[in-house]
């Protein structure tokens, strides 16, 4: 038995990795994985499971790992989680499964996410999964349309295909995967892992139609009335970038994080000019925001050759919404945190290019309704941060495109789709989940919604059949 500490994750040294797009964390070896798995007490009432939004059978899969039975481990994982290689990498485990682990009381919790990742990677590289078209042998059920191929749509599609439905995913972009492809950078989530999972879905019989913007190419009514889809799942995500509405936001050199990350990740601009899509990177870069998106943008700018990268965030360290691990990674890579700083305006030259970011310093006041201490401006504390690029990473909202041509779809003031406890929308046969319902959240919660909706859609479709 080892002591109370978990096995550390091997990773590329900060000085090396800040110049490349290869994955930062390199993953456990078999030996380390088995050792880490042996730390688990296999609790009869495992608290960890309650912390996982999809209730992965954590002790069961970890027990299989501890005995070196990796094929068994992947099968157990997949019963609840269709994208373990993704979740093992990007779940905020420290506030979910691992936060509840009993070992965390005295020492460090079992590294559940790292083990999940290990099992998925091992299964992938050793071809442990036999995927056969779900429809083989079963009578084909109705046609179901999934709008959007993010984690939520992919999960719903997989579950419905396994139940025997004929599933088609419509994706607006040229590549499936949603934020997993265009948002999260390859140094945190290599793109071939996402594509492997998508290939598996296709092998299950799921059809993916890229370049199809629902609301434009087809409306939901077209899908149901002309194209013969008996039910629809909307998993369109929270793709609308927010801006601060401060002066100077339209200057050249100001990006929404979505555009910056899309250019680099989806379009591969980090390989420019081998690929045609360019990206601008300043020498001194300010990224506004404190979430995962902000960390990703800052670390991406660093990798593209920025000399100095700041995170400008209006609250304090404790309030940073990003995963702790990623904040740590960012700091190790040399990103400077300007906490309790808020942008007032972006300054530019007569050619329309960014020359600086005027910030005002903040102090924390009394806790607000959300329990967080709300930041307040310190009058007269304004100063100019010398930067030639600004990335806005202050959040994303609901894209109005689908709603525009779907008048019967009930949405909130902010444009999020209203659903009931079964993820059903105001239109019969149309379900929704993931970020488009909850607002920007997490991969695993989007997947959980996709799972729940698949069940509800099955019940609905059985009644229709």
């Amino acid at each position, binding site marked *: 038995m080892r002591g109370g500490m978990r096995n550390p994750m091997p990773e590329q040294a900060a000085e090396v990795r800040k110049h490349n797009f290869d994955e930062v964390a390199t993953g456990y070896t078999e030996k380390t994985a088995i050792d880490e798995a042996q730390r688990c007490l296999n609790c009869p009432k495992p608290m960890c499971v309650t912390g996982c939004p999809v209730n992965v059978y954590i002790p069961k899969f970890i027990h299989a790992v501890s005995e070196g039975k990796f094929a068994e481990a992947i099968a157990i994982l997949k019963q609840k989680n269709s994208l373990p290689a993704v979740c093992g990498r990007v779940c905020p485990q420290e506030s979910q499964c691992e936060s509840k682990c009993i070992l965390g009381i005295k020492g460090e919790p079992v590294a559940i996410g790292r083990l999940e990742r290990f099992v998925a990677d091992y299964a992938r590289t050793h071809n442990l999964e036999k995927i056969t078209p779900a429809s083989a042998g079963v009578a084909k059920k109705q046609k179901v349309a999934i709008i959007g191929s993010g984690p939520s749509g992919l999960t719903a599609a997989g579950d419905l295909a396994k139940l025997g439905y004929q599933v088609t995913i419509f994706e*607006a972009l040229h590549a499936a995967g949603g934020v997993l492809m265009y948002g999260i950078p390859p140094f945190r989530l290599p793109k071939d892992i996402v594509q492997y999972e998508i290939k598996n879905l296709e092998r299950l019989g799921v059809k993916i139609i890229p*370049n*199809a913007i629902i609301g434009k*190419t087809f409306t939901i009514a077209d899908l149901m009335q002309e194209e013969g889809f008996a039910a629809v799942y909307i998993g369109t995500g929270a793709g609308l*970038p927010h801006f601060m509405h401060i002066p100077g936001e339209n200057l*050249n050199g100001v990006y*929404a994080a979505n555009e910056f990350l899309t250019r680099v990740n989806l379009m591969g601009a980090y390989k420019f000019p081998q690929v*045609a899509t360019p990206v*601008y990177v300043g020498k001194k870069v300010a990224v506004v925001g404190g979430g995962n998106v902000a960390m990703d943008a800052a670390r991406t700018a660093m990798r593209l050759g920025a000399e100095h990268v700041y995170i400008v965030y209006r609250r304090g360290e404790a309030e940073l919404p990003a995963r702790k691990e990623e904040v740590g990674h960012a700091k190790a890579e040399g990103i400077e945190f300007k906490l309790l700083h808020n942008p007032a305006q972006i300054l530019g030259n007569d050619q*329309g290019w960014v020359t600086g970011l005027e910030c005002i310093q903040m102090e924390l006041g009394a806790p607000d309704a959300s329990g967080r201490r709300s930041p307040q401006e310190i009058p007269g504390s304004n100063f100019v941060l010398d930067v030639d690029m600004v990335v806005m990473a202050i959040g994303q909202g609901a894209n109005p495109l689908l709603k525009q041509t779907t008048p019967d779809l009930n949405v909130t003031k902010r444009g999020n789709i209203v659903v009931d406890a079964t993820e059903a929308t105001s239109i019969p046969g149309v379900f929704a989940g993931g970020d488009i319902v909850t607002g920007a959240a997490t991969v695993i919660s989007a997947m959980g919604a996709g799972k729940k909706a698949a069940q509800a859609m099955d019940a609905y479709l059985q009644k229709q059949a």
Partner: protein
Amino acid sequence: MAKILRKAELAPAVFEFVVAAPLVTHRCQPGQFVIIRVDETSERIPLTIGDFDREAGTITLIVQAVGNTTKHFCQDFQAGDEILDVAGPLGRPSEMKKFGTVVCVGGGIGVAPVYPIARAYKALGNKVISIIGARSKNILIWVDKMRAVSDELIIATDDGTEGHKGFVTDPLKEMLTRGDKVDYVIAIGPVIMMKNVAATTKPFHTKTAVSLNTIMVDGTGMCGGCRVTVGGENYFACVDGPEFDGHQVDFVNLMERQKMYKNQEALPYSCGGHCKCVEE
């Protein structure tokens, strides 16, 4: 994958591609565009749907070779080849109604996007006066097609080799000054042309729409790269446009933003290059 069915050179460095895109023609309307990615390493570039045939499931794209991707496409893609991705239709359709007399202004390759709009206005019972312009006669495109859908067609060339010698704004200004009835103007072409058209009609309070060719990536409202300032507010050209009220558009900001990648593109900025307005 979308197959190129026909390709023709309309003018130096301007090509017409007829492409099989049945998903796009299912619902496309005049004023909308597609985003294409010609091959694995290419950019996503927006191109207006110059014409479409719903029955045949084809769209016509008019492409001017101005930079890396458009040059690659125009030079290396022939009839029978396939374009990797065609996404659309994108953007809001043109405002379609019976205005009365509509003047359709097309500059350079801007004639192509104006064509389906003129045709639709005509079909709605509007009187359509079209003014099309180019630097010289040999780079005028779609003259016959435009004539067929217009009650009156005015041509302007910079060098006077065809029609009026001068800018497209000259005949427009004449009409307005003369007091001709003009209820609506739509102008598509190089930014500087659209800016001048809007400046020409403004004193007469003639409603003027312009179609903004910002830099775009996704075309679905996700990236925010296409943002434009109209009436002091921020809009995304791909979902809120591409047509906007010409009297409200901040053209200076638009022109600056189009230069965002000029260092990377190695080429000097030239959007609708063949219109004389660029040289202004």
